[in-house]
């Protein structure tokens, strides 16, 4: 199956498996950032499943599109999706956080498919800008994608990067905001409000596309139509649910970081599978 041909049904199966894998990582010794990983799974699945020009067996292939996980704490989602797409065996995800594993709580460059170590918020967009600028200045057609958390946008360094990307007219750069509405202490809007978020990006010179971050068809359509405007970077504001797919974690700040006991793991998995059955 070629990447363009992959059915949305198949992507949905991969996303489901990735969610199971995220829960398995949440059940390891140290737990995981489950809520923000589950909100990002569909975006990552569409990117790796049908949009990014990559060769998982050759992660440093010169012609690849670059992906930067700026919200590095969603590493469980990244590992689940990378392994689902052949970067390393899915079983390795069970090594998450374990001594001597490659799979740290925040991604390291030694993991196949990881371009930059991230985790401290507000770094990824500048890194992505630099890569996109290098591609543009050297006449290469590689594209660059970066996934940001919404709470992360409170870091001022993002806005330095946002200003510079539009200044350089980087239409090979796409930022995706996982807009799940939560940060550790509560709703983003009750902390330091981000809205009107679309207007803010637009006023900084970006092309803004708003979409449902769990609608695989919609995400495919949005990514398939990039850049949204010639000469401008695009931001995809993807409306998501924290903990998406697992009823006990959905839209709930307590799912931010979870160490699943065997009993809770079982309950979470049952909820996820029931939801999946109903959707089929």
């Amino acid at each position, binding site marked *: 199956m070629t990447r363009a041909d992959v059915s949305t049904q198949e992507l949905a199966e991969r996303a489901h498996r990735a969610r199971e894998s995220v829960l398995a990582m949440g059940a390891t010794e140290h737990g995981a950032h489950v809520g923000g990983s589950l909100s990002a799974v569909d975006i990552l699945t569409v990117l790796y499943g049908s949009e990014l020009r990559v060769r998982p067996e050759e992660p440093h292939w010169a012609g690849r599109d*670059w992906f930067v996980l700026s919200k590095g704490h969603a590493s469980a989602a990244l590992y689940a999706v990378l392994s689902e797409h052949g970067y390393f065996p899915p079983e390795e995800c069970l090594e998450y956080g374990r001594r001597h594993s490659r799979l740290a709580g925040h991604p390291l460059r030694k993991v196949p498919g990881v371009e*930059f170590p991230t985790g401290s918020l507000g*770094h990824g967009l*500048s*890194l992505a800008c*630099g890569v996109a600028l*290098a591609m543009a200045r050297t006449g290469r057609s590689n594209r660059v994608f970066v996934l940001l958390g919404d709470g992360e946008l409170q870091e001022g360094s993002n806005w*330095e*990067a946002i200003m510079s990307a539009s200044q*350089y007219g980087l239409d090979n750069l796409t930022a995706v905001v996982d807009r799940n509405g939560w940060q550790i202490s509560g709703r983003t809007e009750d902390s330091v409000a981000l809205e009107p978020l679309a207007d803010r990006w637009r006023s900084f010179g970006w092309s803004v596309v708003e979409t449902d971050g769990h609608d695989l068809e919609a995400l495919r359509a949005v990514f398939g139509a990039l850049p949204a405007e010639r000469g401008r970077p695009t931001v995809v504001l993807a409306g998501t649910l924290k903990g998406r797919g697992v009823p006990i974690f959905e839209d709930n700040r307590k799912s931010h970081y979870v160490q699943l006991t065997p009993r809770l793991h079982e309950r979470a998995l049952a909820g996820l599978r029931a939801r999946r059955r109903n959707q089929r």
Partner: protein
Amino acid sequence: MTAAEERLVTAGASWAALYTGAAREACRHTLLELARTDPRIFCVDSDMGGFEDGFAAELPSQYVNVGIAEANLFGVSAGLAAAGLVPFAHTMSAFATTRACEQLKLDVAGSALPVRVVATHGGLSAGHYGPSHHAVQDLAILRTMPLLTVLVPADAGEAALAMRAAAYHPGPVYVRLGRKATPRIYREPYDFTIGASVRLADGDDVTVVATGPLPVHYALAARDVLAAGGFSVRVVNMHTIKPLDRSALVSAARDTAGIVTVEDHLVVGGLGGAVSEVVTSEQPCRVRRVGIEDRYLDSVGDERELLEESGVTVDRIVREARVLLGAAPAGSRT
């Protein structure tokens, strides 16, 4: 002609131009020379001024100005480096090491990407600007970054050599520069090697190890004073703070009565701290540290005046050397 001289002459640089004036001018000149022959070399500026008319006008496709945004400066530079380019990121040392410290730590040093940080206004070279622009704890911070190479050239010519060495070094490099012209230390070019200190004067009574333009200049002046008193003083220009030239320190500790360190940096955590760490474990000797006192410096003055107020003077070096020599403060050996 030495290999170093040949490289510079080949690049079209004139010695007279390189060896007088401010180090940052020599570096601008050198960067343009390097970039003309290597399209991977980029100048990434942060509204510092000085590159618009030369570099940006001649090589616009290799010039980027991120504006007044130091965090983005390092992030963008790391991205450029990851994509195969060789960015020279230009800012002031205070902003590089404190404002954008985390980007330097994680995105540049932590990823071992070949970013070259060109940081001006090191030490008290922007003295009259006030404490916002003093960089007197930068070396202490930089020393804690495991994969980073840290260079502190002693004059304009050495700065040019350091830039060339940095350009083709495999990992990240930090080049600390001053602001205005400082005295010429080197009369002729030499084969600058990262990590290999330079013995500017031979001697076996006591050693003075200095880093940075005025500290090295003062160290040489102190040597003259001590020599007039009959002492034989070894002077070492420690132009690389990381990796430190351990063998030069071990031989100084073994061959002479002790080491005086001199730096335009706080007396904690910089050259004096680094030298003490090496000799205490490898070849114990006494170390007297000349540097900026551990206090917040908010008086107005130029570089020399503030160094003097902070305790970095020729007299102070002489005094500390005499302590190591066991000599009376005002007397001489004869």
